């Protein structure tokens, strides 16, 4: 698997898209920090970018990579390599290169800005770690979609739909159900609903740093425990890991049973 990962990674590191993605983040970091000169505001803007754009790029890029390398995959399949190694290797190659574009692209301007001397270092590191997690999660979901759909138009369609659902529609349904059932105790439900969407999960993880003052204003005991202690941070991080592992398992399972 490591060999496949290595080659996929090298291949992507030379692709134009990796550079575009990398330069985009570099530019974003520079603009936010040096033209605006307001670290707290930069972190808030970055959060919006990370929870919306990173999943989108991860999904599209994952699907695109899978379909574009189909024939090459067939070549690999005829080699004495385990099937799961091929797909997991490609997946980790894509996810790693995307994460690196993100982390380095944003990290470089922040290092020049002097983030190490700033109290925002933790907020910022949390943003990058969350961004990397989201990349891994959505690339994995993209691979699952692509592996289950031979038709690439359909695959792209489902991928975009998945993103739209996770980033916007889910929260809309979530909000409506909270408003509709407002007479019932809802804090367990809302935490559960948050855990079930990686975009919400990452958002809440960042909120724990950015908006803790507001979150602690709520009376429910479950919220208090979640937001007021390290419990929330630990649970959210654990759930993010689960969100990487589950689609990865599906990649492995589908790849094992699929005909090429």
């Amino acid at each position, binding site marked *: 698997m490591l*060999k*496949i990962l290595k*080659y*996929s990674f*090298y*291949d*992507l590191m*030379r*692709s134009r898209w990796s550079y575009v993605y990398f330069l985009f983040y570099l530019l974003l970091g520079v603009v936010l920090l040096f033209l605006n000169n307001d670290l707290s505001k930069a972190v808030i803007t970055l959060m919006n970018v990370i929870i919306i754009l990173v999943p989108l790029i991860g999904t599209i890029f994952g699907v695109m990579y899978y379909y574009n*390398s*189909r*024939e*090459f995959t*067939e*070549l*690999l*399949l*005829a*080699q*004495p*390599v*385990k*099937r799961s190694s091929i797909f997991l290797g490609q997946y980790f190659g894509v996810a790693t290169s995307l994460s690196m574009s993100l982390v380095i692209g944003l990290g470089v301007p922040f290092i020049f800005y002097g983030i190490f001397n700033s109290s925002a270092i933790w907020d910022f590191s949390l943003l990058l770690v969350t961004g990397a997690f989201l990349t891994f999660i959505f690339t994995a979901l993209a691979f699952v979609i692509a592996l289950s759909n031979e038709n690439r138009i359909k695959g792209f369609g489902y991928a975009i739909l998945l993103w739209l659902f996770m980033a916007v529609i889910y929260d809309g349904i979530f909000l409506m159900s909270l408003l509709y059932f407002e007479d019932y105790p809802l804090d367990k439900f809302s935490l559960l609903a948050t855990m079930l969407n990686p975009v919400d999960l990452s958002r809440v993880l960042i909120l724990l740093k950015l908006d803790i003052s507001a979150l602690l204003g709520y009376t429910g005991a479950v919220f208090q425990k979640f937001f007021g202690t390290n419990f929330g941070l630990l649970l959210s991080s654990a759930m993010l890991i689960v969100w990487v592992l589950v689609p990865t398992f599906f990649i492995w399972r589908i790849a094992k*049973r699929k*005909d*090429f």
Partner: protein
Amino acid sequence: MIEVKDLYKKFGKNEVLKGIDLTIERSGIFSVLGPNGSGKTTLIKCILGMVLPNSGQIFIDGKPLKNNFKYRNEIDYLPQIANFPGNLKVSELIAMIKDLRDSKATKDDELIELFKLQPYLNKKLANLSGGTKQKVNLVLTFMFDSPLIILDEPTNGLDPISHLRLKNLINSEKEKGKTILITSHILSFVEEVSDEIVFLLEGKIYFKGSVSELKEKTEQPDFEHAIASILSSSYA
């Protein structure tokens, strides 16, 4: 060498292989023929483990294929469409496949020489023409010394000279005592190189034997007409 037992495969409702029994014991060149959709590629992919059969078994050198991937070390496969990661250079691709197979005894230099690929070694695969890609594809296939070679439409996109070189290459591999499995639409090519024909029709083996046996059976003077007569009688 290769033993296929009662092989069934369907894609959705479409039954592609309906009980294939095939045994290839000796070395030589075997052509798998048949009309479009007769299951040629599916059969080959089953042997390669790329398509998983619904039922039936395949043995290579007496070992079952299921949950086994190491046997592919003994197979060289030429896929139909040559499409490689665009950002790799030709030399890197060759090094990579070698790396994946952990194989040191290769004859890639020889083959590069044969197909005159030296000027392309440092070019990215995305910038190569279809024919050149097919040549690279051939290098990747023939550079290992495996006892079983599977070629899916090997003549695609090749110029006449390369075509000729390919034919020589196949013959020289045959002389080394290897088993070579070919699918092709170019009947003249098949007739020229094949020792034996396996004719698939609607998911079953319709005929297995030499070209002359086929002519005899169909009572036709030449190979092309023989094939045509099979097709017209079966569709009549």
